[in-house]
């Protein structure tokens, strides 16, 4: 069989288990084509495809898929529904596959996570679609999962060490796909670092630690990634301020961030990024927030 290439878009799900799949495909000896870090061109592609009201992160995801269209044998598009009833996802995660099928001609490699299927089922499904022997799938799965976990543990350890530092610290509460996106979060991170602020990321903590803590702020919250991110707030009692970062018009954040903001007592900054926000606006807001922290 000819060697196949799997195109993995650097968008939303990439930031959750991208590492796992990278190692998994490596082990299975399958070539992977990643789309590059988000560029303005990718954003523009997404914008021209997606309905106007779709959130910026989704538009970027579609832009990445569009970049890969025609450049690989398969587009890698999962569908993530829920891990259990208390850990559901945004409805956009439910529509990844069917949307991609509407927009793109390249065949799609798809797996599904819901009450009955977990990541292992996903790996088995993807593996069998690429006709990899079951034994190798299981082996690759174990190794990839261990490696991905190790990376997460290292990140978590670093974060916990940073938390002990004496400098001014800020916690960014956001979805991983926003903080680490080259276009959405990077300007903000650069500005904070230039001002000598230590930045902590809500998604670098371990989900096992943050998820149960979320109930302290919201009892009924049933979105996994929102739980993971706001759970970092009780974990980081020592930070001087909190920045809420979301993309316009994120459905979950519009409710969750509003609720959390009403409950916390720390200085906070609520940033909503749209492709039209200009750099100057951001600069003014971040600078005044930093000034506020310096005084506290």
């Amino acid at each position, binding site marked *: 069989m000819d060697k196949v290439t799997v195109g993995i878009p650097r968008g939303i799900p990439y930031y959750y288990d991208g590492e796992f799949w990278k190692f998994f495909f490596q082990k299975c000896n399958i070539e992977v084509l990643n789309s590059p870090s988000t560029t303005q061109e990718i954003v523009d592609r997404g914008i*021209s495809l997606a309905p*106007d009201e779709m959130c910026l992160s989704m538009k970027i995801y579609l832009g990445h898929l569009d970049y890969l269209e025609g450049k690989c044998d398969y587009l890698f598009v999962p569908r993530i529904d829920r891990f259990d009833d208390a850990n559901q996802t945004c409805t956009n995660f439910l529509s990844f596959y069917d949307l991609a099928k509407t927009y793109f001609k390249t065949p799609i490699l798809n797996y599904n996570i819901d009450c009955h299927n977990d990541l292992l089922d996903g790996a088995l499904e993807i593996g069998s679609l690429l006709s990899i022997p079951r034994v190798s799938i299981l082996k690759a799965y174990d190794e990839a999962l261990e490696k991905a976990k190790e990376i997460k543990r290292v990140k978590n350890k670093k974060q916990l060490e940073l938390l002990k530092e004496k400098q001014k610290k800020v916690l960014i509460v956001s979805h991983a796909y926003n903080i680490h996106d080259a276009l959405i979060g990077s300007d903000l991170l650069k500005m904070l670092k230039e001002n000598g602020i230590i930045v902590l990321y809500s998604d670098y903590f371990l989900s096992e630690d943050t998820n149960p803590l979320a109930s302290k702020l919201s009892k009924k919250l049933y979105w996994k990634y929102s739980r993971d991110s706001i759970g970092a707030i009780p974990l980081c009692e020592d930070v001087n301020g909190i920045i809420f970062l979301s993309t316009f018009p994120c459905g979950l954040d519009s409710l969750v961030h509003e609720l959390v903001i009403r409950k916390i007592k720390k200085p906070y900054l609520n940033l909503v990024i*749209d*492709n*039209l*926000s*200009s750099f*100057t606006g951001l600069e003014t807001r971040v600078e005044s927030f930093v000034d506020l922290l310096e005084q506290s």
Partner: protein
Amino acid sequence: MKECYLGIDIGSISTKGVVIDKEYHLLDSCYLETKGNPIEAVKQVLRQIKIPEGYHLYGIGTTGSARKLIGLLLNANVIKNEITAHAVATMTYHPEVKTILEIGGQDSKVIQIRNHMISDYAMNTLCAAGTGAFLSSQAKRLGMDVKDFGSLALTSQNPTNIAARCTVFAESDLVHKAQIGYPKEDIVAGLCKSVVLNYLNNVCKGKKLEAPIIFQGGVSKNEGVLKYFKEILKEEVMVDPNGHLMGALGIAILSSKNPRKEEYHLDFENVSFKTIGKECHDCSNRCELLQIYREEELLDIWGSKCGKY
């Protein structure tokens, strides 16, 4: 006596009037600013427009945002919305056209035509970004006349990127770019380009724009915008010299096709029209009612939500 028909398009920014004959030839036209007073604007139109010797008026049509009010006052035989009017006129004068791009004062739309029928259309999402009003306000910001926009845009080699999805953000972006020293022509060209991109991404999303394409509405007079339409669509884009009158022409044509015809006399000069706005306090809806009078006679009351009037 030969028959002729009057079409009036009362838009948010400008008011247009035309007189056509039975074969849809344009006999007379006028174009003026609405200035927020549609009744006065229409009176002005009726004063200016001339019905040629030997013709008699057999129908009046109104379109545009004030179509209902004016239609009621003039006793028009056709009152239709501007999308239909534009399409009808374009299909009459340019039967080959398949796509109509239109950017007007406060809204923008795309109309697609197959087999001499409107097959699909779309309009901007109720926001003024990227329309004529947006360009005028940005021109004011830059201290220019919007009429000079087009020619200045043509001189630019490097249009600046300007985010034009939202008026407020575009304005701050524009001021920022101007302050860090971009040349004016590049900013103006950037604005024109962003109007086109915004329009194509927003209004024409998911539509295949087939040639021949015609560009209409007030903004079609802007050479800069036209240039970027051609550049980005990679197609020839026509502009009708009467493009700004298309709405009025269309409604005049519809008026001529209407079986209800009667002889009209244009002597509204001395008739006083009055509209009184008041808030109704009968229930918590607090509807803003509009009472419309001709002389002292109450013609209609609008704006009631509960159906009381």
